[in-house]
């Protein structure tokens, strides 16, 4: 075939324009309705409650797709989710303590099935050792894995629950009975589970059931629960323990696994890469959604630097992590980003040894014994730690709002913190560092008149290895402590956690991770025989105060008790808080109402308020 030049040209033009038209058609999105959130770890399961899958990312995805009775907010307060239901103490006896949990009527799962009190019962199976044994599901303390491989066994709930939860006549509420009053009882309520989907899954179903089928399936569970039908429960246990351990979600995924009552439901997931959630159209179990966001994507990026560069490159909308000072400075320069300094759940503190911890050789260092010389030198030592300088140089570049901790029981911003620090004896340790050094040197000279910056006392300090910030912290402490007559001899150990109790160390510094806000959370650090009491603290009057924290109290009472306890701790120079670990949250400046929170589920806690 022979074409004239003109024909060829016309053909070329036609083809090019056809091409151009076909290429330019992909529609441009009108406005963003997607939020891409950074998570450090990959999703490993859609059930975050087994020992192996108990990871933040799994919990966060679980939080978005399932609403319960309460949640932690950005101030570390437990907030009741009144939309979903209500709970109260119905009997407040010393040996018969009962709480009642009621689901508000009309709440539905995403498959349209109404939520009832029966959905609260599985939680008991997952938490009570006694039930597990009685129902033939295996002993959680034994050698074999129980039918429900739950990480909820063996805690306060299991130790104190009496019998089984009782379901009200209308099946909308559940009453729990405990053998004594328990502190923070609102933390030990039932969780909500779509048991009908597990029953259907256990029966091998592959598609969502009708509401009637679902209700019938739920009744089958109730029967099995009440009669402790081992076989049925075991088959559900298998689904619960293993069925949810998948990380790839697409059109072929069994929809029964994805039923939830949260604002967003898992739509798709790519192994080790991301999980995408879409808005749940039937959502009515929590605060109403702002409506502007219809997709939330979690992108898994383990390297902090890489994640902040990804944010700078617009691949993420929200970044959270323990960034370095430079990463923060770099993020600050970006104009399309809002940077919020925040705090993590860990807090750094310096401890001094009072005595040998159990199983260790005798401690005969300068800090030995309560009261008198030991206490004076311990106080002097803690005075000589330049806390303000440490926070200024190491923490504030990351979190500009960071302050020196005045308590190891409570953190800035928590209710009662200001009253606490004003009267808990922490004032002794605040002031200009020169004044503190002088005060410390006076205390030292009381017992060692010859001690001076040129003739210092040796203090053996365990320095956690593998950590640049702690190396710098120790360098600062060493440089200042010499002015108060202490020569810090650091022993850097990578395997420091196992060595904290060793008698060869006069002082240690590390961080505790406070994952919840239980009143008695710090008790183990100080009471005689406490699991974390590695510095040989033995003060019966302190124990008396701390033991009172194990019963339900109102916030004011709690604060008063902590003030009493910390006065003793500060007067003895046992421990001194330095800083909360800084965390950084940075997000797309168009996104509104992002509020970083230290406790799980971290910043997604108020996802319903997010909007562009």
């Amino acid at each position, binding site marked *: 075939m022979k074409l004239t030049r003109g024909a060829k040209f016309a*053909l070329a033009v036609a*083809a090019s324009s056809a*091409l151009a038209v076909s*290429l330019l058609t*992909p529609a*441009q*999105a009108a406005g*963003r309705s*997607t939020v*891409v959130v950074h998570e450090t770890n*990959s999703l*490993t*399961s859609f059930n975050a409650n*087994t*020992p*192996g*899958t108990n990871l933040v990312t799994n919990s966060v995805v679980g939080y978005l797709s399932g609403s319960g009775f309460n949640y932690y907010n950005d101030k570390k307060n437990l907030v009741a989710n009144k939309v979903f239901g209500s709970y109260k103490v119905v009997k407040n006896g010393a040996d018969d303590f009962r709480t009642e949990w009621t689901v508000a009527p009309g709440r539905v799962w995403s498959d349209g099935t109404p939520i009832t009190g029966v959905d609260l019962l599985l939680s008991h199976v997952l938490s009570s050792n006694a039930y597990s044994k009685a129902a033939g599901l295996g002993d*959680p*303390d034994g*050698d*074999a*894995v129980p039918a429900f*491989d739950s*990480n*909820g066994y*063996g*805690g*306060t709930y*299991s130790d104190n629950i009496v019998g089984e939860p009782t379901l009200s006549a209308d099946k909308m509420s559940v009453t729990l009975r405990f053998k004594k009053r328990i502190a923070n009882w609102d933390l030990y309520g039932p969780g909500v589970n779509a048991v009908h989907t597990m029953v259907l899954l256990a029966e091998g179903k592959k598609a969502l059931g009708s509401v009637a089928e679902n209700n019938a399936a739920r009744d089958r569970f109730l029967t099995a629960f009440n009669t402790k039908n081992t076989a049925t429960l075991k088959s559900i246990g298998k689904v619960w323990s293993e069925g949810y*351990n998948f*990380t790839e979600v697409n059109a072929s995924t069994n929809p029964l696994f994805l039923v939830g009552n949260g604002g967003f439901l898992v739509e*798709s997931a*790519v192994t*080790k*890469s*991301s999980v*995408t959630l879409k808005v749940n159209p039937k959502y009515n179990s929590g605060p109403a959604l702002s409506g502007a966001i219809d997709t939330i994507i979690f*992108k898994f*990026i*383990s*390297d902090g*630097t*890489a994640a902040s*560069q*990804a944010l*700078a*490159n617009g*691949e993420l909308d929200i970044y959270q992590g323990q960034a370095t000072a430079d990463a923060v400075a770099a993020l600050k320069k970006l104009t399309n980003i809002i940077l919020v300094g925040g705090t993590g759940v860990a807090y750094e503190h310096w401890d001094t040894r009072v005595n040998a911890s159990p199983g260790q050789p005798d401690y005969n260092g300068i800090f030995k014994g309560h009261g008198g010389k030991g206490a004076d030198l311990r106080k002097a030592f803690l005075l000589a730690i330049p806390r303000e300088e440490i926070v200024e140089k190491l923490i504030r570049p990351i979190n500009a709002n960071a302050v020196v901790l005045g308590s190891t029981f409570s953190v800035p911003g928590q209710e009662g913190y200001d009253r606490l620090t004003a009267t808990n004896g922490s004032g002794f340790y605040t002031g200009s560092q020169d004044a503190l050094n002088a005060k410390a040197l006076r205390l030292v000279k009381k017992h060692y008149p010859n001690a001076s910056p040129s003739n210092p006392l040796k203090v053996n300090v365990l320095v956690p290895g593998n950590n640049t910030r702690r190396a710098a912290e120790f360098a600062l402490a060493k440089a200042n402590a010499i002015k108060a007559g202490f020569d810090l001899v650091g022993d850097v150990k990578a*395997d420091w*956690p*196992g060595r904290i109790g060793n008698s060869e160390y006069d002082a240690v510094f590390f961080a*505790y*991770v*406070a*994952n*919840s806000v*239980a009143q008695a*959370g710090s008790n*183990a650090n100080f009471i005689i025989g406490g699991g*974390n009491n590695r510095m040989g603290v033995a003060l019966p009057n302190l124990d008396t105060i701390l033991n009172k924290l194990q019963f339900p109290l109102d916030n004011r009472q709690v604060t008063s008790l902590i003030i009493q306890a910390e006065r003793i701790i500060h007067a003895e120079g046992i421990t001194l808080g330095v800083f909360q670990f800084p965390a950084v949250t940075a997000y797309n400046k168009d996104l509104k109402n992002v509020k970083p929170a230290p406790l799980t589920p971290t910043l997604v806690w108020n996802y319903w308020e997010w909007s562009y």
Partner: protein
Amino acid sequence: MLGYIMRRIGVSIMILFGSSFLVYNLAAYAGDPLGELRFSTDDNAKQQIIALTRELQLDVPPPLRYFLWLKGILGVFVGKLEMGMTRESSSVQGELAFAIPVTLRLVLVASVTALLLGLAFGIISALRQYSRFDYAMTFMAFVLFSLPIFWVAVLLKEFMAIQFNNFLSEPSIPLRWMFIFSCFTAVFWSSLFGGERKRFWSVFAGAFATNFVILWAIDFTDWYLHPGLGPILIGFLSVGIAMGVASISTGLTNIPARNAALTMAGLAVLWYYPAQWVFNNHGSYLVILLMLALIVGTGFICASLFSKIDRGPIARTAIITGVISGFLIFIDRVMQTWAPYRATDAVNGRPVPTYGQRKDQLVTDDFWLNNLDTIMHLILPTIALILISLAGWIRYTRGALLEVLNQDYIRTARAKGLNERTVITRHALRNTMLPLSSLFVGEFVGLIGGAVITERVFGWSGMGTLGIRAINSYDLNLLMGVTLLLSTLVVLGNLLADLVYSALDPRIRLVKE
């Protein structure tokens, strides 16, 4: 031969047994998998310790636990391989099965590209020994040898992703940069051609001017927003390729070969629009493979049309020309996807990513969009890997080729009057490939385990990431899974390298006869 291979495999299994025992115990004693839990303030930390101890059999001392693990591994002989569970309750096999393709995709592209580039630069470097180009390549190779990869990664991300994306939002090349860039390219070309001072400067001037004009044209037409080659440019390039391929493959004196190559170049232009139609309506790898087969077939036909004798080299020339020209059309199509790709919600105008294997929020059935997305995510890590392994190939190739060029048979070949092209391509290069082929096996295996840092900084969840995770969480089963796989690869790689070497080089015998 079979006996030799069987014996080697037998010894290898013993070696693997020994090394896995060593690594298992080293790792088991290096850290406490429960360490973190012991410090947890969780309400039921004790219960979690019990559960984990049970799951990971921590109550069995490591040397004995090794045999429990080994029992699962030996199941491979009865078809029931059991590598245990990770701490996160997933199966180690599953984790490995997921990670291997990821690593392979990353490493394969990078090592093949590095090999090809390294060969090219190394060969030129050796042929122009002690020239400016040679010095520049040597210097560059050593600089690349000396770069820490994560350091390179940070720079790449900053300049090639973040800054480039910023640039794309307000694209315009400053004159200053056009000038500097053109200078660089001109120096490259002129030192490549070498020659007397006069020739150097004339090449320099030519290259500089060409480059400057191209850059200016790119800038003027906003080409980087709507890139593409178009049939005209493809035509010009194809003719150039045809001449180049012909001159290297058969020499330009071979008229039928030259004509066949030029015909293929012409066909490439003619096929441009039909190819567009096929690409747009039936884009898939299968179709592309079919088109490749079509090109090869056409090459044969072309060769037989132009010559009755000695068709082999002519067909080769025609096919190589056809494939490269076809590749240009493919590239052109990928370039055309650039604008719609940038416009998608997922990309949001920032096409060069710093992280990950693909954009999961890009949900589309479009073959080309998905393709470009994969390519864009491969770009930075591939460049980083190429940069570090390129240096090795340049040096190896240069050394090997110089060694061969010193051999007597090269002298003989020259002495009997063969032209330089034949001596180099036929006698020298083939012998240079011998040691390089076995090196490639080793390098490739090394990279699979050695791309740890690249994977980490670019967020690829391959073998390296898996290994690091295993170490950091004291996940013994996972660590052993990774180690065993890598060591098996090393053993097989060594064997394969020996076999390849003996197969290619008849002088080498593995078995004493």
